[in-house]
């Protein structure tokens, strides 16, 4: 049987991605089923980078990660949250579908301990995910994280708090999460469900994308009506 060159290259690509620790995850989140992700699904067993240029982006970013993790994980899995200046309130993780008592916080004194601890933790297969708040991540450091992940298949999230410079990293993707006015279906007064603009700025073996997402009933729900407006806004920028 003749195998076409294109098929063979596709197979080889898939093989390389598996070597790099990629695993497609089950569940539904923004961009599932589109060409944004390899295998049309969010890759676990990789390190993702999330930009937080402003302090106000930190909460939506943390909420987005918590929402993702609640879908990626079983209910029992342990998450390690490493930070040098943490404000995260464990109780508030419960509405995002995580069990706050399964989250272990490491409050490092120095910034450089965060990167070290994150690398150590990513090597441990007993964890399901590691979140690290790192301000400056250079290429070498990100390579080290990626190498750690390839052995253990733990998912890593690097939150770049107020980065001084944004350079190339070895992380598999780069995201930016910002909050938008909250939504309620029936025009009730008061706050509705949180709505975020999820920008996928970079994705290895995938396409960048942008979605408006509402977090409702412990699920991501895409806001179709917002898309046009947001995309228009993006073009204007």
């Amino acid at each position, binding site marked *: 049987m003749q195998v076409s060159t294109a098929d063979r290259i596709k197979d080889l690509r898939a093989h390389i991605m598996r070597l790099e620790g990629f695993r497609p995850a089950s569940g539904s989140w923004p961009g599932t089923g589109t060409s944004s992700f390899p295998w049309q699904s969010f890759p676990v067993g990789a390190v993702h980078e999330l930009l937080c240029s402003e302090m*106000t982006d*930190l*909460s*939506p970013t*943390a*909420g*987005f990660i*918590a929402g993702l993790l609640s879908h990626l994980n*079983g209910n*029992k*899995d*342990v998450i390690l949250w490493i930070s040098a200046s943490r*404000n*995260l*309130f*464990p*109780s*508030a*993780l*419960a*509405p*995002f579908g995580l*069990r*706050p*008592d*399964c*989250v*272990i*916080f*490491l*409050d*490092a*004194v120095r910034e450089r*301990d965060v990167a*070290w*601890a994150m690398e*150590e*933790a990513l090597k*441990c*297969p*007993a*964890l*399901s995910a590691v979140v690290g708040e790192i301000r400056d991540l250079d290429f070498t450091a990100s390579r080290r994280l990626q190498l750690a992940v390839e052995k253990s298949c733990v998912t890593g999230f690097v939150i770049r708090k107020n980065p001084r410079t944004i350079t190339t990293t070895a992380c598999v993707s780069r995201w930016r999460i*910002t*909050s*938008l*006015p*909250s939504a309620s279906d029936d025009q009730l*007064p*008061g*706050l*509705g469900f*949180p*709505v*975020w603009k999820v920008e996928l700025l970079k994705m290895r073996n995938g396409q960048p994308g942008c979605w408006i997402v509402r*977090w409702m009933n412990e699920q991501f729900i895409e806001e179709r009506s917002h898309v046009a407006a947001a995309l228009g806004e993006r073009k204007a920028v």
Partner: protein
Amino acid sequence: MAARYVSIWFRYLKTDWCSLDRPHLKTVPFVLRAPSHGRMVIVATNEYARAKGIRIGDVLADARALVPGLEVLDDVPGVWDKLLRRLAEWCIRFTPIVAVDPPDGLLLDATGCAHLWGGEGQYLAAIQNGLLNKGYDVRVGMAETPLVAWGVARYAVSTLVPAGQNTEALLALPVEALRLEFEIADRLRRLGLHKVRQFISIPRPSLRRRFGTEFLRQLDLALGRESVPLEPVIPIEPYREQLPCLEPVLTLPGIEIVLRELLDRLCTRLEKEQKGLRTAVFKGYRVDGKWVQIEIATSMATRNRDHVFNLFALRFSSLEPGMGIELFILEAPKVEPYAPQQEKMWDSSGGLDDVRLAELIDRLGNRVGASRIRRYLPDEHHWPERSIKLATSLQEKPMTTWPSDKPRPLQLLDPPERIEVTAPIPDYPPMLFRYSGKLHQVTRADGPERIEREWWIEKGRHRDYYCVEDEDGHRYWLFRLGHYDDEQSSEWFMHGFFA
């Protein structure tokens, strides 16, 4: 050689122990109390309280009426067995065989020991003075059988029974000296038999008929016709291994070899005893007379050689060999029982019980400090700062469910930050607020949610919380402290950010 036994009677064991770290109690009447059948009963008295007529078993209220300035402490159950055991271990300096004799005594097999102190009189004096220096008032009796030694320590004037005079000494003792049950001793007394001398010549069958076989057995024990083996206290050997080196060790590979060797020995012993270490110290004595050490601690008991070695390896940089180390010592000051885990074929369970997770936490904790690794459990407080508490161990389970009925921000500021707010009164949410130099226009708001101070913990004003959203879509958690008031202007605070 005739057997010799020493019985030590701690006359005021509990109160003496309590006054060790409270010197002011040494010279005043002082008792320990414990609840019994709904009232407070005295379970131990000291010398002064006893002299005032207070006895064990009296009701505390009566005793207070008798001695107005009576000092009272709560009894600590469970301590006394350990205390006796510690004292027994201390007494091993007098004889290798020491047994605990609850509730308030020790029994020493002193056969062939006394001559080392220059005679039995000096031997007893040494024991008595030694314990007196430790703060315990004791009476020490010595005889050929344990029971007579017990009796003379408590009931005789002369506590030393010379060899060969065991029976004579027994004859002069009161019936209680035989350690009889209360009913039997009482029956003997009512029959007018106050001393052992008075019934020793009564034929055994009639004694058995009247007082039972147990009574005869006690008599035989006292006379040495029967004996009960002692259960000697064996002190736990410290978990400590050492390795002297022929040549001083200077290099890191050398130190690693030494540590592996010592760990192997220590862990082999721990395996035999089903224990695991929680802390370990690795010491090196250098040629120049100084010593260096590194310490580690683990979050759960372990005897995994590689894991402990890796923990030490993180600290090797602070171990300065100087001119060379000639003696290495590895100690485990804290060990815990540790049952071997069943090896799983597929260990992919994850979860908080995973050994690999505990080992990771140890590695991280030894570098950044174990107290900086935190896990939280829900606590039953509605005050936001107190609604979570630190978990003490990885295995601790939450006692209550996580509350999710009220909105709580993903980021909580500690402490809350003061902000300037424009709000219509009364109780409307803010219209405008200024936070970190920026003016925010409120577009949507929820609230107020009033959270009262927990008055049984602290005083202060309540908080009225509002969830607000500004025109950029950022969501905040604000609160106003207290009511709108004429005297005080209302204070507003920023307390957190929603996702």
